């Protein structure tokens, strides 16, 4: 049981910058070393975990934990995936609060802020390719972005409308 916690704590710790970097690491640990599941099975779990809402690392750890030891296993794995980053970020948030008005720290972050904006802009183009955006559905991301940016619609409503819209279009209009 503790092994489950430790394994996912390790996987959680090595995910720097984004969830998908950890897929090879999960495969190596869970399939090759511990042999908790087969590679084919893991690929299925990953596909489902990716299409579900929420944090990918948590989704996949709950899946594997539940398979191994039912509810206690799922709890252990989720805790393992979340706890290390929780502790690190909490320490940083507390630390940063005391130093953010320091002129050196402020000028460093004035340089970092434009970089962060660019780092968020890049996946837009990557995801446009992987989610098969074409001339017929390109209005969906454009209208969604404009509604959030200019009118201040919450992305939560955009997601709800998009889900209902996709269903209605395929099943009622076609």
């Amino acid at each position: 049981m503790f092994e489950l916690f430790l394994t996912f704590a390790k996987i959680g710790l090595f995910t720097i910058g984004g969830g998908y970097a950890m897929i090879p690491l999960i495969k190596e640990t869970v399939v090759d070393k511990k042999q908790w599941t087969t590679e084919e099975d893991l690929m299925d779990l990953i596909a489902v975990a990716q299409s579900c809402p929420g944090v990918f690392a948590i989704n996949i750890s709950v899946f594997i934990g539940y398979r191994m030891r039912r509810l206690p296993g799922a709890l252990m794995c989720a805790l393992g995936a979340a706890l290390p980053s929780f502790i690190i970020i909490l320490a940083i948030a507390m630390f940063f609060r005391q130093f953010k008005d320091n002129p050196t720290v402020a000028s460093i972050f004035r340089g970092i802020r434009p970089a962060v904006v660019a780092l968020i802009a890049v996946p837009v183009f990557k995801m446009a390719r992987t989610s098969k955006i074409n001339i017929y559905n390109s209005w969906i991301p454009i209208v969604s972005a404009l509604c959030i940016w200019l009118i201040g619609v919450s992305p939560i409503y955009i997601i709800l409308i998009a889900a209902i819209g996709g269903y209605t279009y395929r099943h009622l209009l076609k």
Partner: protein
Amino acid sequence: MIFLLLFITFFQIGLLGFGGGYSMLSMIQTEVVTLRGWMTMGEFTDMVALSQMTPGPIGINSATYVGYTAVINAGYPEWAGILGSALATFSLILPSFILMIIICRFLLRYKSHPIVESIFSGLRPAVVGLIAAAALLLCTEDNFGSPTSSPWQFWISLGLFTFTFIGQQVYKMNPILIICMCGLAGWILF
């Protein structure tokens, strides 16, 4: 009161956060900065930078950070901030935890179901829009300076933005390295 709102906000984000960390960032940005005013757009941008540089999933990192900062910004003491960060993280995880167990028990094969596929045909393009909006909303004076009142900061910021964009999109540079380089540039130039 802020604790109840934190729970509701992050539970919603966890439940509807399709499309990974960046689309969740877009939700956190609108709910936390624009609607609730728990932190400024500048503080939000710093939070994103810190979550990207530290290990762990971006969704967990930002929930923890926002939970702490929102409660402290509202004037509560340190211990309440820690409680806030634990609550926000827990609320973000809870819906997907429940959902994953239900899926694991009953409908692991649901992925290819026509209803699920039709829903995703709408969701996938919308998530791209969400992330685009997150980037657009961050183009503020807080983050870039202004061409009239602080032209030095504005043009340097624009340069750093272009550098990062090309470095990441074309040359696939490591994002942590880029953040460190831009921090160094900020330290020297500002």
